[in-house]
């Protein structure tokens, strides 16, 4: 059914563009995630994912494991 899902997360704890790249690396390592783009200045991470494989909780856990705090927000 349909294409991939797009989820948006509010992320805190970032202090530079490298933090954003680190989060993108960590999230894109998850199966089911097609793409992850983090805007460090706005504190937003946009993830294109297959929710049947990589859920919002799993993505939050990956961001937390990378050292930051995240929660889903309405796109």
């Amino acid at each position: 059914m349909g294409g991939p899902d797009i989820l948006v997360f509010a992320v805190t704890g970032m202090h530079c563009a490298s933090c954003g790249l680190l989060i993108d690396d960590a999230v894109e390592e998850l199966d089911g995630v097609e793409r992850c783009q983090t805007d460090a200045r706005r504190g937003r991470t946009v993830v294109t994912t297959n929710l049947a494989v990589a859920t919002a909780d799993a993505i939050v856990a990956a961001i937390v494991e990378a050292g930051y705090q995240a929660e889903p927000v309405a796109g």
Partner: protein
Amino acid sequence: MSLWAVLLTGLFAGGTSCAAVQGGLLAGTLARRHPEPAVTGPAKNRPQRKKAPFGPPPARLDDAAAVGAFLGGKLASHALLGAGLGLAGDALQIAPRVRAAMQIVAGLVMVLLALNLLGLKAVRGLVPSPPAAWARLVRRSGRWGGALAPAALGVATVLIPCGVTLGMMFLAVASGSPLAGAAVMATFVIGTMPLFALIGYAARRSTTYVRGRLGPVTGAAVLLAGLLSINAGLVLNGSSFTLAGVWREVTKATAATPVAAPPVAADGVQRIVINAHPSGYSPSSVTARAGVPTMLTLRTQNNLGCTRTIVMASFGIQKLLPATGDTEVDLGTLKPGTYRYTCGMGMYSGSITAVA
């Protein structure tokens, strides 16, 4: 701001930031070169990872070489950028006072960055950030599978400066010379290296905890660097409202006793001699006669320190002295008042007081 201050900023602020964050990026690059078979014990209801980017570092000698390549690439690209920024500052430089103003502006920008790092949302929109395309380029360089990937990643980090690095970039512009600009950026990167090598690589797992908490630490360091830069600009400008001046007021410390005015020679000229040592100027305070033509001799002997560059903003004079030798400067006929001068880094200063 002296190179020592730049080195310490790199060591404590830049080092922590780079170690925790760029260390993670490098770890991902290394893990891609040597993928591990599986991740043990994935959390329940979590998808499997495609790879293990942040696993414990495999004990490989070539990984140590990779860290060296990363740092080497980073040092080269930042030194080159510093040279370019110094060149831009040189092109912009009109007079010593303009240079002092640039240093103050650099400090104000650093304060702005610091406030953002400390969580003041009102300034978020004012803080410059690199274009998304540059970040993508950095990611691509790290994902490149070749042996040169760590070096390429190191070079590419110049495209995504953190707040502390941005502050150093402004200082490189304010330095007003390609050599000094390269020295500022290279010294900063060298300062980041020890912590990077110790924390960012060897114990990269443990840095996950500190990554999200770096904002306040980095912000405090950038704030300090910004205030030091503003102070250096004020010193360069010959202002008496500097940290040293405030300190003297607070502690009621007396300034160095000025050396008496030199005799006026038969030709009607008074000649003042100031020695520029690597550790300062002597005498640091000289009295002169107002209304008398004045020649200043700046004397150096085996001096390779920053006091070789002397800025006398009141006279619009900026000179690079030879390592050894005398440099004559015609100050004209002095009006009563205090004329301050400083080294090119705003670190050492002195004054000539003309009295009627």
